[in-house]
């Protein structure tokens, strides 16, 4: 690193700042991904009705920022699981296809993994939140190909939504949270399991 003393430093930004920047980047990429998918599948740009697939406890103002992050972290984790289901399904159907959409899809997946790893550092010990998924991939088999695509759109919409939420929440976080980034909590990881209906 010529001319820079990078070793042992994490940069001038704090961890929360980096996480916020990452959430913002991911949110933007999710928007691009959704746009790419709609374009590739010639789907209407209007949102698909039916609400978000992932549901979490309401982010009421009474919750602390850490609690909000923990809740959003649970939602993002579900989003990642759904996204991997999408990738698995699409790889099974169009394994040879190499499109910008597929590249972006995998980038978003990786970036979401990065965001999850990064937000995990901001979680508060002892607090456990779970997110619920209303419609899984398994239930889409009966609704045919169109139903599956609509479900994928909904997954991508969820991604846009929850990454946006996370980005906004992280940006609004005070600087104090950056002062004591904790190490990854095993308990939190264990508690971040799926919450199904």
């Amino acid at each position, binding site marked *: 690193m010529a001319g820079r003393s990078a070793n042992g430093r994490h*940069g*001038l930004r704090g961890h929360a700042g980096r*996480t916020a920047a990452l959430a913002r980047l991911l949110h933007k990429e999710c928007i691009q991904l959704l746009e790419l998918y709609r374009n590739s599948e010639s789907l209407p740009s209007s949102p698909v009705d039916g609400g978000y697939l992932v549901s979490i406890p309401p982010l009421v103002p009474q919750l602390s920022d850490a609690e909000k992050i923990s809740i959003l972290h649970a939602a993002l984790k579900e989003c990642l699981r759904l996204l991997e289901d999408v990738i698995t399904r699409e790889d099974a159907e169009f394994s040879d296809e190499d499109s910008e959409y597929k590249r972006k899809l995998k980038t978003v997946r*990786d970036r979401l993994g*990065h965001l999850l790893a990064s937000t995990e550092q901001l979680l508060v010990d002892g607090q456990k939140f779970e997110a619920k998924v209303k419609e899984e991939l398994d239930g889409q088999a009966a609704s045919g190909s169109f139903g599956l695509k609509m479900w994928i759109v909904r997954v991508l919409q969820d991604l846009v939504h929850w990454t946006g939420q996370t980005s906004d929440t992280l940006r609004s976080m005070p600087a104090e949270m950056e002062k004591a980034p904790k190490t990854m909590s095993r308990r939190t990881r264990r508690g971040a399991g799926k919450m199904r209906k």
Partner: protein
Amino acid sequence: MGSSHDLLLLLMFLHYAVGPTNSCVKILPDSSSSIVLEVGKDFTATCHLLEGSAYTSDDIEWILGNVSIAKQSYRKINETSVSVTVNINSNMSGWLRCRAAKKSLSYARTCIYGILLRTGYPPLKPKNLSCIAVQEDKDISSYLNCSWDPGSRNLLIDTTYTIYANVYVLSNRTDCNQHLARSCVVNLETFPIHMVLKVWVEVKNALGSERSEELQTDSSYFAKPNPPLNVQVLTEVNIPTCLMVTWKHPIDRTILKLSYAIEYRKAASDVWIEVPESFTRGYIESFRLQSLEPYTQYVVQMRCIGESYSSYWSNWSHSITESTAEASMTCIIHNLGNVDGRAPVKANGKILLYNLSINQDNEMFESHNITADNLRQTYSMELPTGKMASIEITAVNSVGVSPKATLFIPRSDKELPGVENMSWSVRDEKPEPELQVKWTAVLPLHHTLHLFEYLLEWVKIPQAVHQTELQADWQRVPNNVTITTLNADLEKFKRYNISVYPIYKYYSGHMWHFQAGRPVTRPAYIQQGTPEEGPTVTVTKSKKNSAELTWKEIPLDRQRGFITNYTIFYEIGNTKQSVMVGPNVHTYVLMDLASETDYVVNVEASTEAGSVKGTGCTFKTMKYGDGEVEVIVVVVCLSFLFLTVFIIMLCLRKREVLKKLLWPQVPDPSDSSIAHWSPDFPIKADLPKEDVSVVEVDVFDGKSLCEEDKGVLPLKKDKYLSEEHSSGIGGSSCMSSPRHSVSDSDEGDSGQTTASTVQYSSVRASGYKGQTPSHQPPAFARSESTQPLLDCEEHPDHLNESHSRSSYFRRGQELEPGVLAPECDGGSLTFCPVQEEEASPIAEDPPASALCYMPQKSGYRPQ
């Protein structure tokens, strides 16, 4: 057939090298593969004789490769075990074998076992790890290229370098198995923007492993963005001192927020000026360059870096050239010392024309308008002594007129003093060295004459070929400064003349006048180099022991520095000699050279930076020195002259002799007695006048005869007498006339002559007219004739008469009767044989003189 033979040999080798499975010895440690050992360490192996072996430990021998290990390295553990300890070096890779065999003749089977050793070094800790991921399209590439210093030691054994890149719990790794790998690329799948990335490299081989220090930082520190996109430079029409620079971000700020750096320079200059980074720190896409010079071309380029220097710098963008707008002129430079016009330093626009006015003692003398494309003008004006002239000039461009610049022409009778002790030095400043000039301040001369300032002028010498006038640059220095650095972009290896002018001012005629003092000039180089070429030497004079060499001074533009000295190298064969002379010497005489010898000579020119030899030449010293040839010629000529004079003198002294030799007196046949002879007329009457005989009797040298041993004489006489030849003249006479000549005869002959046949013979030496008879035996001519003898027998009285003309009977050119007589002792004269006297009736009356010649009497007997 051949391959099966090779296979058999291989099997035999393996059998003996490794040993059969049922070998009676075993080595510990053992391994199914090779045993890797560290160079420099001791290694101990133990050979065990298996149970039932016929050998003891004394029969064990260790062999490394094909060489038996010295017994000193062995250690006997017990009767069946022997260990060996060796210090490992890098050449020991190969088989280490233990062999048990009887030293004496034995039927016991040889036991052998081996282990394969490989030697090497443990890895070194990789140093200076650095990783970079370049921008790819609109994102940062997922490929992280890392490099490090593995150390220079050859590890000799297989070594694996593994690069680890961890993003928290997510880990990526890549193995690089290249020998002494220095770099490796790890694929991160997706570059972890806004994450902390931890990178290190591990190196591992059979002898150990090492791990480099970790790079753990925000991943942006590994990113290298592209240069700014679409960089444009726009002229600000209304602001002639500004240029607007615009660009586009090369990457989205959500990935990497950038800050920018801008630098610019005048198109005519190489010095870049960087805009302070604090001005361009924000995430901006335009910047206005200010404080530029109007109507000047500038070159602009940009680069970018992650905010707060959180990435690598990008490369520089392409350079953009643009000009600032025109502006009204602000000033025009004073041009001291030169009347010809020159474009001002800050033209601020295109100069349309110049207004020039020449004044004499503050009164207008003449005025001219000069167009910008015709700057070189000549005007003449007589300046009376004591009067002062001034020249005022203004420049006009499309916007306005410049302030007036005035040049004062000083009175010719007044030269103002210059500075003293002017010197220069080079300061090694970064990035370029600078030239510093210092001098001693001029002393105040008069209270009305003030030192206004100093002016430093520098002129590159020599100028380019196409330039017709000196291209001078200058800078002004306040009057209280005596040391300054030239704000000049001086070329390396070029000579500059640096002058310091003190500028004085004084008040006269209700206005201030300016006048330059005497300039002090010094040549200088900002950096000296070795000359481009050496001097070409020629030999102008070559003498016997010296030669004069001449070489030209190297042209100034090729000197590239001050010549410190010349070194003359001259060599003969393998012997080289050199002479060093000063820088101002261009002719030198080499002394003490060997004569008539080839020399190779060349001259080397040296500056403080180095030396260069010039083209050499070959010359040969002369064989003779100055005047030697002339002396030889004079001596030879004088010698020839003396010899000639001597010969002439000798000829004069001996002219009579020579005359006789060269022009012998040949008898005139018309006056001979035979012409007047008739049988009835007594011949006696003509005898006193005429030559009776034309027979020449030449005999061999009497002197040589004298020197002969008299005892040998009879033998010689026989010889001489046996060689008879017919005479030339006499012979012909005898043939053409009834006259008989008698020369000699031996005893027998005389009897014959008297009895029946008279032999007419002549004896002559061939020394006629200068020929050398002494080297030729005398020739005797004999004529076989039955003619009766001449009447000299019957007329012995004729003998006396004939005797008086005996000079016709010559012995040769060199021998004259008178000369020979003293050398011979009368009766001992060898050519006076008694036999001849007996045989010849003439001999009965020997001549009274001691001469041995037998003169033929004149007179012929009529037949």
